[in-house]
């Protein structure tokens, strides 16, 4: 376990001895990690190593899967997110998520963004709501492209635009942390570049944890990188350190493309 103890960053999520089983097969083994505020943390590793599983632990989306058993501590604001009294709905409001395949709701672009803030009572008047939608779309770098067609279906946008819409939707509820599970893997190179830029800007406001199977992407966007292998966290470090000088053989092999 290699944890970067750099003090310039404040802790956002603390994970200790996290184990997770799907039925009888263990998908995460003894994971310890500290996620720092207003940074991008990338999670890399070969297919099936538990990247997505780890990510879903952070906002308890794993609760939706049957037969999952979790052990260990995940702490946010000093509270264990798995404690019985923790309301997972509240947790998910504070820990937003963006998925691999863009999944806008089959509603208008406006509604896609306005839906959650309205339900959460974050806005009361229409004007406030309009403002919030505009702000979120601006932050997601989509405003200029859609400002004239806010009433069109969200699904009518291109893939990259849809993904940015999903990001806008996530940031509209002002979460602390945004989880992204391979947010660019279904996108073309140009959209990918846009999203990568966006992540760079968003980390001013939000803590971002992103999964990627593309090492180059991790190198480009992440401040910290965690390398998983067969459910274990093999190495966690400052990204530059990780790519220039991996401590473990496995990480080195993976990064240099010896397999995967």
């Amino acid at each position: 376990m290699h944890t970067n103890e750099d003090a310039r960053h404040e802790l956002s999520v603390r994970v200790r001895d996290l184990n997770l089983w799907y039925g009888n097969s263990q998908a995460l083994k003894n994971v310890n990690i500290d996620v720092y505020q207003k940074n991008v943390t990338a999670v890399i590793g070969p297919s099936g190593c538990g990247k997505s599983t780890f990510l879903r632990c952070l906002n308890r989306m794993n609760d939706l899967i049957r037969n999952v058993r979790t052990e260990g501590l995940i702490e946010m604001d000093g509270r264990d997110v798995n404690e019985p009294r923790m309301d997972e709905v509240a947790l998910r409001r504070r820990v937003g998520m963006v998925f691999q395949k863009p999944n806008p709701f089959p509603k208008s672009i406006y509604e896609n963004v306005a839906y959650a803030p309205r339900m959460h009572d974050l806005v009361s008047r229409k004007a406030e709501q309009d403002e919030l939608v505009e702000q979120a779309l601006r932050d997601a770098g989509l405003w200029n492209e859609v400002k004239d067609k806010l009433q069109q279906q969200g699904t009518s946008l291109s893939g990259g635009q849809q993904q940015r819409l999903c990001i806008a939707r996530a940031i509209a509820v002002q979460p602390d942390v945004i989880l992204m599970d391979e947010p660019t893997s279904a996108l073309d190179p140009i959209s990918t570049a846009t999203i990568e830029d966006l992540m760079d800007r968003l980390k001013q406001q939000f803590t971002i944890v992103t999964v990627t199977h593309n090492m180059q992407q991790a190198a480009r966007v992440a401040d910290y990188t965690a390398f998983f292998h067969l459910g274990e966290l093999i190495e966690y470090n400052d990204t530059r350190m990780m790519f220039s000088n991996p401590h473990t053989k496995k990480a080195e092999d993976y990064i240099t493309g010896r397999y995967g």
Partner: protein
Amino acid sequence: MLTNQIYLLFSAVLIALGLAAFFLARARASHLRMNGTAMVAQPDQYAWFSVLSTAGPALLAAALGAFVLLLLGADIPILYLLGASLAVAVIGLLVGLVQVRPDFHARQAIERVIHGILAAAALVSIVTTLGILISIVFEAVRFFQMQGFWDFITGTTWAPGNSFLAAAGRGAENASAAQFGSVPLFAGTFIITLIAMLVAIPVGLLAAIYMAEFAPARVRNLAKPVLEVLAGIPTVVYGFFAAITVAPIIVDVAGFFGLEASFNNALAPGIVMGIMIIPFISSLSDDVINAVPDSMRQGSLALGMTKAETIASVVLPAATPGIISASLLAVSRALGETMIVVMAAGMRPNLTANPLEDMTTVTVRIVAALTGDQEFESAETLSAFALGLVLFVVTLALNMVSVIMIRRFREKYRTNDL
């Protein structure tokens, strides 16, 4: 009987020829291949081709002959027919053998035939629809000639009584003429259908929501087949239940509230029909709800929505076209349902909106007219066909709408599929 023997003879000779074709062709092909000729197909394929070319045309010829003989009444001695078709079989056999050539694509030929047979099977469904149309259209047209199409569609009085008397030769001059205004029948049908839907849609839809979104796997696995039993119960049984058990209860309950209910009230068949349709709605809705991609649910939950909010504002809107279309299909089932109303609904063409009164339905009238006592040519009997025709058209239209809705549903979530 002679015909039986002829069938027997025909099949026996044909089977013999078919076997001969198979073995001769295979032997020939194997022989050719032994001699080192490269062939595009395999011996078995040549063999099967020969069998097809022997039996196929012969069967066609026999069927054609029988058709001409039986239906067009042509006078072909049956032995000639037998001889002719067997001759065709022999010719087919020879053709099959000649075709055992290195460059003949026997497999492709067989597959073309199979393709043809499959396509023919698919056409049966079209023929069936045409058959239904043909079997009602002519009589319906005769009815319209007697009674007038417009009066039938828009008339609000269904009083066929006098057509009966007229047919009996005792039509009375000062009695009013028979009237065939189908509006009361359709109104009754729609009201009973409406009652059924008021029972089936809420219960069915909510049950589907529970099964698809909340229920633990075990409950779901149990509930689905149990509900399907409700759909499988024969409609006579429901009819018996509606007439003997439910109707008296309704009369009692209505009496308790100081209302007067007829024993043939529309409520009893309506409710029972609704119960019958619940599983229909619930399993179709369950399917469409399940077809809403999980990514949408996750997208909503990840925003901190509760389950109910996710269902209400994401899942159900996405599934709505599918649910509507399921309901439309259910409506067309209810419209055409016969036995429940025959046993439990009234016979009185009664234009009313009060479900405690008795009313009648289109299907009841069709059964009554076709099993009743009037002369077959009487307008009332023929009215059954006219009613059937309208019913056919209505269900057809409903189904078309539902096909369009389903398509829209698919498009809606396909776009999300990138």
